């Protein structure tokens, strides 16, 4: 009985705070402890208790397909560049100049604005040893932060959740998309994902009139609030033998699903309520990607206790007709991000938010015969926020033929140094247990 009461309390608590008044955003300690006990996790000193309004937030932005870094952060005064890019090369009058030799692609006015206002860091020449040119495999390497010849089962963000967020709410990680990216794979799976908040719910066939109860929905809720009521039944000897096999502290498979079912009910209510209640406070472009960022902004504004949001924009695999495609994508990316930053500023949340972009690889230095570029290696990353070390970080990689590796740009910065910097200085956790070894953290904030 006791358990049923605390469970009910948790649900009521989350409903009344997140959905109702915004008075109390900080979880009282006694309740936080109860929640962790409910999750069956041992209290862990590394655990980061996350609350709605104070923790830092990371937004990971995937540029899927392999963005041509060379035509994004452009060495417009470099002869090797123009020799390699007779058709695609961007001249000084086309780029948005950052300094005497480097400029942003002309479509990136949003980024230029962020750069000028001190909100943008450009990490130059990011990659990893023995680069892989397969989309599939290189994406996996970035998502799992593995060496290029090692296959990791879990993602770097998943390992962050495992290491630093035990007992946290499932909304600790939010993916706007249809599926969890590999970076979220974890020993104890966390994170929710949805592309349309209106579909992130139990669908009932009924259409009750106001004041009427939706009996299907009511039955669903009762059928799924059973968690813990039966937990005494399986507290016997069988748990000992089970615990070795289950990535959680004992218990039966159905117990885990019961907890997840309750999490689903609660987060579904939260997400839909926030999406309906919170208004965006900036004007975004009209694109699918912008829609995703608008949703992230709403969820942040609504106080969801999330530490990592994940959004992706596809289409960068520009083997042919690169000029038009990249123009469109980079404009969308920059304008959307600029609006997002304005939105965060208007909300008063900008100092809590850091955006990181990545792409599975850059493209070859030499353009191909089809007005495009093929799969390459190192490329820049962007870090956006109020507290970033703004400006150009690292060194622009050399394009001299003798400095290339099989025609590709060699990396100066291992992407895991960027991850390490973000984990240590932004998410405030040790990076070595998450990345498998100690990488020198690149101080991005």
């Amino acid at each position, binding site marked *: 009985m006791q358990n049923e009461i605390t469970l009910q309390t948790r649900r009521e608590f989350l409903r009344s705070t997140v959905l109702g008044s915004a008075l109390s955003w900080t979880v009282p300690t006694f309740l936080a402890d109860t929640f962790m006990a409910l999750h069956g996790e041992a209290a862990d000193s590394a655990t980061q208790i996350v609350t709605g309004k104070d923790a830092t937030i990371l937004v990971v932005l*995937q540029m*899927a397909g392999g963005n041509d870094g060379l035509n994004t952060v452009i060495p417009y005064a470099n002869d090797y560049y123009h020799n390699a890019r007779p058709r695609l090369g961007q001249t000084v009058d086309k780029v948005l100049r950052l300094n005497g030799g480097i400029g942003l692609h002309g479509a990136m006015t949003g980024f230029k604005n962020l750069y000028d206002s001190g909100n943008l860091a450009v990490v130059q020449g990011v990659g990893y040893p023995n680069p892989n040119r*397969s989309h*599939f495999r290189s994406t996996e390497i970035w998502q799992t932060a593995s060496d290029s010849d090692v*296959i990791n089962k879990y993602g770097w963000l998943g390992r962050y959740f495992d290491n630093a967020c035990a007992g946290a709410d*499932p909304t600790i990680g939010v993916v706007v*998309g*249809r*599926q*969890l*990216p*590999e970076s979220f*794979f974890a020993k104890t*799976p966390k*994170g*929710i*994902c949805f*592309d349309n908040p209106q579909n*992130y*719910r*139990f*669908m009932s*066939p009924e259409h009750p009139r106001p004041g009427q109860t939706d*009996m*299907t929905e*009511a*039955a*669903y809720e*009762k*059928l*799924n609030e*059973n*968690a813990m*009521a*039966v937990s005494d039944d399986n507290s016997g000897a*069988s748990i000992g*033998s*089970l615990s*070795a*096999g*289950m*990535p*959680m502290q004992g218990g*039966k*498979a*159905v117990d*885990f*699903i*019961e907890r*997840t*079912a309750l*999490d*689903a009910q609660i*987060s*579904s209510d939260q997400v839909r309520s926030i999406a309906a209640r919170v208004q965006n406070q900036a004007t975004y472009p009209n694109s*699918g990607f912008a829609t995703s960022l608008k949703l992230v902004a709403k969820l942040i504004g609504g106080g969801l206790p999330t530490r990592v949001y994940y959004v*992706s*924009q*596809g289409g960068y695999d520009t083997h*042919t007709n690169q000029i038009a495609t990249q123009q469109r994508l980079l404009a969308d990316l920059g304008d959307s991000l600029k609006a997002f930053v304005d939105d965060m500023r208007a909300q008063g949340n900008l100092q809590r938010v850091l955006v990181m972009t990545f792409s599975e690889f850059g493209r070859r230095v030499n353009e191909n015969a089809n007005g495009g570029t093929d799969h390459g290696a190192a490329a820049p990353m962007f870090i956006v926020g109020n507290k970033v070390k703004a400006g150009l970080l690292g060194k622009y990689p050399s394009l001299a033929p003798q400095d290339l590796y099989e025609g590709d740009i060699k990396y100066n910065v291992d992407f895991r140094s960027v991850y390490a910097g973000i984990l240590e200085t932004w998410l405030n956790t040790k990076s070595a247990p998450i990345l498998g070894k100690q990488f020198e953290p690149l101080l991005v904030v």
Partner: protein
Amino acid sequence: MLKPLSKDGWNYETAAHLLNRAGFGGPPEEIAKLTDLGHDAALASLLDYEKIPDSTPNPVWAVPDLGRAERLRAIQAMPPEDRRNAQQAEQRAQNQRIIELRAWWLNRMARGPRPFQEKMVLFWHGHFATSVEKVRDAYYIWRQNELFRRLGTDYWLRLLIEAGKDPAMLIWLDQAQSRKEHPNENYAREVMELFALGEGHYTEKDVTEGARALTGWSLDRDAQQFIYRPGLHDNGIKTFLGLTGNLGGDDAMAQIVKQPQAAVFITGRLWNFFAGLPPSAELNQVLADAFIENARCFKPFLRVMFASEEFYTPSVIRNQVKSPVQWLVGTTRMLQCDLPPGFICAAMLRSLGQDLFAPPNVKGWDGGITWITTNTLLERYNDAATLVQGMTQQLTASDFARKPGGPGGVVQEKAAERIHIGGLDVDKILTPEERADKGQLVASLQHRLLQSTFSNQQDQALRDFLDSRPKLNDTDIRNVVRLVMSTPEYQVT
């Protein structure tokens, strides 16, 4: 030694458990029939599938496409615009076949006469996890699937050698590119780490020496089959897992399978798949011993395993999270209804996290509780409504389009289409008496769908729903079935 299940341990519950795990479950009549057979005969009816005729025809395109390599070469030589179009057309054709192949296989699981054989194919697909995302040839993918069907319960050595020589694997782990000057170590490493021994049971030296031994295993892309190319083989002396000589690929595989750890590794994987949790070290050793006693042949080993008391302990029964495939196929078997159209099944499985022929990586699906996230759980609950209540809908071309940004998965590209899912035929699963009495109705559905019972609170929730309906029509009953499926309890087997 595994202890055989006692005579009185064999009953409806244990029979249902066997059918769920060694197959994909079934309706009460099928379980009752299995119970009546007795344990040994029940096992024989599942395991000795060679005696059951299976007349499922192969996909019409499941033959070597002898012109494909030539065609791909010709495409490479085309001017850019034509090349792009031709490549896309080629890929579309392959994608279409993969969609058909998924439906073909799911139908074998759901409707075919040999559920255990298909369960083994599913095990091996997850074990030798190979993705069409890289292989990009539906014939090769079908061939590998058929190999698992042919040798799935055979000798471990035979299967391991054949799986390594199969074209899909030769491409998937780059063995096709290996030559004596630059031995590619990918297959040598993964065959030990992921397929046969496990991490820590070989050295880096074994990887490089194994890769040398494997040189010569290659792919004849014109004939679309394995070829041994003596010119690519390293004829030097290698030392691999303690054996020294001018070793070839077959020798290396034999040396792997001979390792005591090999028996521990593969029986542990099998136990995990069928029992739903990894065995204790002690049980794992017992399983390995049984495997070696049975000449490292899967069929006799699995017969002993499925006959053992250990397989029917309470911590095993109803404690496995259903994989998406088990969930989908099992549902149609228990409810005696048809699978939805192939591309709907594929879309469901993809969003539930088990895109057949496109596992997330060479490690395959993690399985277990990782199948369940808040979104896949809600997805299961909502897919249950689609399966049970049926639907008729006009889809547009954009509904079929590949969603950008998401990982993997071949998606059908096609024009607008009207889809129809019939839904559940209520009278097929309920007697008039059960329909007339709410208590009997709830009991019957629990018996069929859970082979277990709900808590009192859950029972009451279903009764409250039924009481809110003055007269139970088919839609109401389908709704109750969907509610039973929308519970944590339905997600385990």
